[in-house]
């Protein structure tokens, strides 16, 4: 319940519109409510019953696929030297599971490395079951709904304002690691901030909410849900933006541009120079008129 209270307190402080407040309140309620019942195709008689069923299914999946690193009850595991193999999952919430498993980062090939995004190992139903199980371990952020990260309900002016504000927040909080185009960047000791242009809005939202891997957390006390929504709106607007100046050349900034200046620009010019100075075809014939 701590999560719910905090959200409510923050909302009053920010003097957000009542609709937004209601939406977040609803989100909070859904954590303890029957969100997974709605998502799960196996939802049957009563939501509580199916919820319990889902948690049970999730636990079974967890014991097979996750418990080796995260412990029998998601309490985390360390090896004999005290080195962490898998962190505790108590309180990470459904959102973290949905992000980690939904983007294919979990299960990891081996502990200790930064999980790359890859094709999902579990299907959507299984992810929902795992999320329900982990959410049952302790209160944590829930999986956001489309209402959280979509600007569909807004007027054009509101959408415009959202994109502008989202852009400023993006440039302040995200570009340092993920690059100005969202192409990603390097972090210490072989770590990296991944490319976020292909990530779905839900997963971007969840990443901000839960801070996966070495990423910082942007909880609702940090960036409000509206601000997260705005950031996503900006990222989407950049994704949809045509290449005004031509092909993006990897959008990595001056290094890739320099590479192209040398290889394409100078390469083509030198090739022309070679052609200009090359000998033309010669004839074996002699010119008759010239003596």
């Amino acid at each position, binding site marked *: 319940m701590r999560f719910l209270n905090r959200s409510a307190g923050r909302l009053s402080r920010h003097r957000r519109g009542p609709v937004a407040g209601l939406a977040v309140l609803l989100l909070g309620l859904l954590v303890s409510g029957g969100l997974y019942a709605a998502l799960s195709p196996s939802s049957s008689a009563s939501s509580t019953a199916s919820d319990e069923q889902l948690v049970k299914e999730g636990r079974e999946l967890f014991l097979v696929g996750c418990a080796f690193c995260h412990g029998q009850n998601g309490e985390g595991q360390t090896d004999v030297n005290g080195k962490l193999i898998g962190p505790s999952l108590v309180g990470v919430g459904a959102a973290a599971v949905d992000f980690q498993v939904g983007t294919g980062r979990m299960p990891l090939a081996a502990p200790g490395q930064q999980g790359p995004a890859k094709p999902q190992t579990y299907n959507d139903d299984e992810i929902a079951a795992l999320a329900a199980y982990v959410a049952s371990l302790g209160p944590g952020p829930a999986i956001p709904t489309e209402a959280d990260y979509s600007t569909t309900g807004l007027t054009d002016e509101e959408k*415009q*304002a959202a*994109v*502008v504000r989202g*852009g*400023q927040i993006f*440039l*302040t909080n995200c*570009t*340092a*690691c*993920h*690059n*100005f*185009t969202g*192409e*990603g*960047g*390097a*972090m*210490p*000791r*072989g770590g*990296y*901030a991944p490319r976020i242009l292909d990530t779905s809005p839900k997963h971007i939202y969840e990443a901000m909410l839960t801070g996966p891997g070495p990423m910082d957390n942007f909880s609702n006390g940090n960036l409000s849900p509206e601000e997260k929504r705005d950031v996503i709106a*900006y990222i989407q*607007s*950049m994704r949809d933006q045509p*290449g*005004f*100046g*031509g*092909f*993006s*050349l990897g*959008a*990595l*900034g*001056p*290094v*890739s*541009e*320099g*590479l*192209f*200046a*040398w290889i*394409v*620009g*100078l390469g*083509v*010019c*030198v090739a*022309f*120079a*070679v052609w*200009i*100075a*090359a000998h033309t075809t010669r004839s074996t014939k002699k010119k008759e008129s010239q003596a």
Partner: protein
Amino acid sequence: MSIDTSKVAASNRTAAVASKPSKVGAAAGWADERLGLAAMGKKNLRKVFPDHWSFMLGEIALWSFVVLLLSGVFLTLWFRPSMAEVTYQGSYNQLRGISMSEAYASALNISFDVRGGLLMRQMHHWAAMLFIAAMMIHLLRVFFTGAHRKPRELNWVIGSLLLLLGTLEGFTGYSLPDDLLSGTGIRAADGFIKSIPIVGTYISFFLFGGEFPGDAIIPRLYTIHVLLIPGLLLALIAAHMLLLVYHKHTQWPGPGRTENNVVGFPMLPVYAAKAGGFFFIVFGVTALMGGLMSLNPVWKFGPYDPTKVTAGSQPDWYMGWPDGALRIMPGIESHFWGSTWSWNIFLPIIVLPGLLFTVLLLLPFIEGWITGDKREHHLLQRPRNAPTRTATMVALMTIYACFWAAGGNDLIAIKLHASINQITYFLRAAVFILPIITFLVTRRICISLQRHDNEMLLHGYESGVIMRTPEGSYYEKHLPISEARAYTLTVRDRSAEQLTPATQDDTNGVPAPKGRLSGFRDKIRTLYYADDVDKPTTAELEEAHHHADHEAHELEALDGHSAEGHHFDGRHPVSEEPIRPEHH
């Protein structure tokens, strides 16, 4: 009297006018009477330029500079070099309503609201990158072929200054749009300046008109970018070209091409057409790049805000190497008596570029001092025939490349899935070790290529034809190289001749002062020419010819007894012969 005056007038005219009083001729006459153009034209219109692709690399730089002038003038019509704060109300949605500097707003305006503005911006930027890249490979060509030797040392100095000024011009231009990237660049530059002992803080305050960022830096950089440096560049380019015309272009050795002549096409019409055509080509390539390849999308960076930053904050490629030096420098800072010495910044970004540039500037003089060569040189050398020089430049290039790689270490880390820390540690060592390795390897490669040249001269080239002797042993047939090629290979100095002591008694028998320096020079000179493979002596050449004749004589016995490949002896035309005679 009227007859007399007409005579005088006619004799004053140029030949062209006298023979054919056309309209063009009349105009030329009019101009010549005022400017005396004919005397200049007589010398220069048919001036000879040798034809080789590597002689056109400098032209790429020249023509991209013209593209820079043209596109730059276009940009100044809209660009406002002002740091006054405005609220953006232009057409780019993602930034509307954001407060930004007028400079950035006008850069957005050029990109989105001036038709063709984005094209011109990108062409200007691509041409700038091309300008400096072309200057650098032109410099490498000159050095590798020995075109920097007497009498062209001063043109080398001018060229080096052009490279320096071009780099500064590029940096000031990079800083003008006042987007996040250029602002970060200026901020780093402020850090560089502040690292200068004693005066650094003062210079920073004078440059920025107070504390960073202030509101003066962009107008000031603008003046430097569009007036001061272009003026200097123009003057130096003019001097560079004048010296080129005065010295006449160098040429590759070959039959009929000596130190005393220059062989090639005349300025009018061939060279003028080729150079003029090349201008259109460089211009066209730049336009294609500007149209198809996105460059510095300022709208994505947003206006400069001193609290924001982006991953991949890098300078343009030509500033990449000092930036790389800065990245791999260990963080050493000392404090004496309340003052701070930022070695970690001052050494890599102020001292190192200055040092390397000085070395670059002095290369022809250092080489001239070591070799003691005071002759004029107009024939180019192949890189292999000056192994130490070639290896020196390759070592310098290796240092440059290491710093360059360091400047992109974050992107290398991502693309190769490597650790940025490991790359940095590696480059810290590599920048010292790799140049030594490349120096030695290059030198050895050059020497073995020299040896290969001698083999070709003495024994001909490997024909790929395997011969079987009557005794049953096998060998590969060598065929003599053409007369022209053989001559070309022999046109070079003997290094042993250069190895005379630096201090010689002068002609009057007065003993030369033998200082410690000259002894040092003798040592260096010995090392400079060490292991060089000289061209063969006349005796060796005769001996080899004799041997070849002897062999040919032996083979004569086989003439007419066609065996596979045997008729391919270099003395009979073989184009009609079947490779394998048909067996009946």
